[in-house]
Each structure stands twice: as structure tokens, then as C-alpha cells.
């Protein structure tokens, strides 16, 4: 596989990885207020995503893939909401350990990386096209 | 490499032009005797050919430098464009000279 096609393959794997990351972020954001159903029950636990690189023998490029989607082990913050169905006898509810600001920052980072990978795909495609163009109009 | 292009094409044309020169008036040399018209026309062709070869070699040198990474892009573009212009002009002259020579050689004396 020539180097330019390898670049396309690597950038495509980057797009896939960043999309997974965006999916996890949007899950966290959507469930930022999801408490449990029964008194004292645990709420939604934040998910984290980790990447790992993998050397692709055929192309010589380092593909990226999702190594794991794990749960954030940090403690649940507690809020005083006596009316909530998940409130314990003192009226405290365990809220999801999702910090909306952190998730938004992660989302814009994921967008930036996604755009960069897209740029690489566009450029690799253009370079291949330029090479083929050498043969035209002769 | 590119210099070879110049040398190959113009030597025979110039020799032919020298042989047929008394009859040729193309080249816009104006009011001069037939012989001096002929010889200065051949000189002019010679000089034009040399200039073209030099322009081509300059363009090749600039391009090699550009590929190695240290040449001004605009200079490279100018050099290559001059080479293309010079080459096209010289080819047009070559074709004209060759066809004129053939026409003369076909003339009934």
C-alpha cells in the first residue's frame, strides 16, 4: 500500500475514534441529570474512553482504535432534593458524576481532532489527484 | 539532459539555412546586401539557439534547487516560463526554416 493511501486509512481510523469519543460525550451530557429510580439507588455513572495506537503492517502507519470505554470511578455528588424518588430518608439524592463543563470542553476537543483528521483526508486525496493529473492533457 | 534538446534540433537547420541563405529574406534584417543578410541571419539563428539552450539549462538548475528545497518559488516559475517561451519560439523558427529550405530546394532553377 503506498504512503498516500496509508495516510487515508490512518486518518479514517482517526475519524472513527473521535466519533466514538463524541458519542460517549453526548451520552454523558444527555444523562447529566439521570438519577436512580429507587431511594438510595446509584445514578448514571460517567463513561470515559481511552484510545490506543496500533501499527498497521501493510501500510506502515499507526492506526488509532478505542481500547476501552470504562466508568469513571469518582464519587457521586450529593444534592438535597427531598421530592425526588431517589431521595434517601434524609432527602439527599446521589447525582451523576458528570461535570457539564468538562464534557463541553471534551466535546470541543473532539471536534478539533475530528476536523484535523478530515483535513488530512482532504489533503491526501488531493495529492493523489494531483499525481494522476500529471498524466492528463499531454 | 535538457541541453540535449537544443543541440539536436538546431544544428542541421542552421547548416541548411547557411547554405540557402542568399535567397532568404525572413528575419527582418532589412536593407543589406544579400550575402551579409544571409550570414547575419545564420548568426542570428545561432545566437537564438544558444540563448534557448542557456534558458533551458537555467530552468533545469532552478528546478533541481527547488526540489531540494531552497529556491524562491517565483524565480523557479519565471525560469520555467521563460524556458517554455524560448523553446516554443525556437521550435517555430526551426519549423519555418526547415519548410523554407524545402521550398527552395523544390524551386526550378
Amino acid at each position, binding site marked *: 500500500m503506498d504512503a498516500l493511501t496509508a*495516510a487515508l486509512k490512518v486518518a479514517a481510523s482517526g475519524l472513527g475514534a473521535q466519533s466514538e469519543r463524541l458519542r460517549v460525550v453526548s451520552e454523558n451530557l444527555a444523562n447529566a441529570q439521570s438519577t436512580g429510580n429507587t431511594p438510595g439507588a446509584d445514578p448514571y455513572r460517567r463513561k470515559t474512553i481511552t*484510545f490506543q495506537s496500533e501499527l498497521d503492517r501493510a501500510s506502515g502507519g499507526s492506526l488509532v482504535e478505542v481500547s476501552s470505554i470504562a466508568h469513571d470511578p469518582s464519587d457521586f455528588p450529593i444534592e438535597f432534593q427531598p421530592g425526588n424518588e431517589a431521595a434517601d430518608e434524609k432527602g439527599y439524592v446521589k447525582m451523576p458524576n458528570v461535570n457539564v463543563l468538562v464534557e463541553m470542553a471534551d466535546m470541543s476537543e473532539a471536534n478539533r481532532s475530528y476536523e484535523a483528521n478530515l483535513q488530512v483526508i482532504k489533503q491526501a486525496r488531493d495529492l493523489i489527484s494531483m499525481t494522476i493529473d500529471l498524466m492528463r492533457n*499531454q | 539532459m535538457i541541453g540535449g534538446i537544443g543541440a539536436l534540433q538546431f544544428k542541421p537547420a542552421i547548416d541548411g539555412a547557411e547554405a540557402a541563405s542568399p535567397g532568404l529574406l525572413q528575419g527582418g534584417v532589412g536593407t543589406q546586401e544579400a550575402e551579409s543578410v544571409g550570414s547575419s541571419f545564420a548568426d542570428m539563428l545561432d545566437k537564438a539557439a544558444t540563448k534557448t539552450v542557456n534558458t533551458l539549462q537555467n530552468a533545469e538548475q532552478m528546478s533541481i534547487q527547488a526540489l531540494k528545497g531552497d529556491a524562491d518559488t517565483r524565480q523557479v516559475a519565471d525560469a520555467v516560463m521563460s524556458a517554455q517561451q524560448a523553446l516554443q519560439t525556437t521550435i517555430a523558427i526551426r519549423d519555418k526554416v526547415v519548410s523554407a529550405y524545402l521550398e527552395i530546394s523544390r524551386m526550378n532553377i
Partner: protein
Amino acid sequence: MEPVNLFDLATRQSQWLAVRQSAIASNIANANTPGYTANDVEPFEKVLDRTAVTLAATQAGHLGTETANAGFNVKPEEATGSIMPSKNTVVLEDELMKAGEVRRSFELNTAIVKAFHSMMTMVVKS
């Protein structure tokens, strides 16, 4: 050994640029991978200085990655700037700048090849 022929030099440079583009792609794709160090190809001048013997040793049929990288050395570059806690050394802006350079050089390369090729065919056409 340095190729003196214009077309050979242009081909060698375009191969080098393609390998560089692939290294940049790997860096950008792995910008968030923990422990990943950014790679880059050796400079083109170094490639030109190498002898023919070294080049012959990296012919096709040898190690897979060597064929893919056309015999150019792709090695990790030193980390500049701050070290992230995740030990990732990719700076996205630098990679995008490098990609821009690759594009400019590639365009110049194909333009030069096209111009000289058309000049050669011009001469042959009557």
C-alpha cells in the same frame, strides 16, 4: 547517491513527501492516544546524502514497513514544549503546519514535472 536527473529527483521527492504525509496522518489520528510519541521522516537533504549501497539494502521484499516507507527513516521526534501527563507529544498545530508544507512542495513538484515533460514532448512533435 544524489540523483542528478531532474525527473528522478522529482520522483524521489514525491515519495518522501508521501511518507511524510503518512507520518503526519498517524500523528494527527493519535493526537489523543496516551503514551504516543510523534513521528517524522528524516530531512530530504539527509536522504540525498545517503549512498547507493544503503538504498539498495531497502529494496522491496524486505520488512513490510520498510517497503511501505520506501526506505526513508521514520523516527520519533524530540518532544518540544510542555510534556503532557498522558505522555502524548503531538501538537496539532505543528502537524497541520507540516501538512501545509507538504502540500506546497507537492504542488511545486508536480508543476515542475508537468512543465518539463510538456517541453520534452513539444520538441518531439513536429
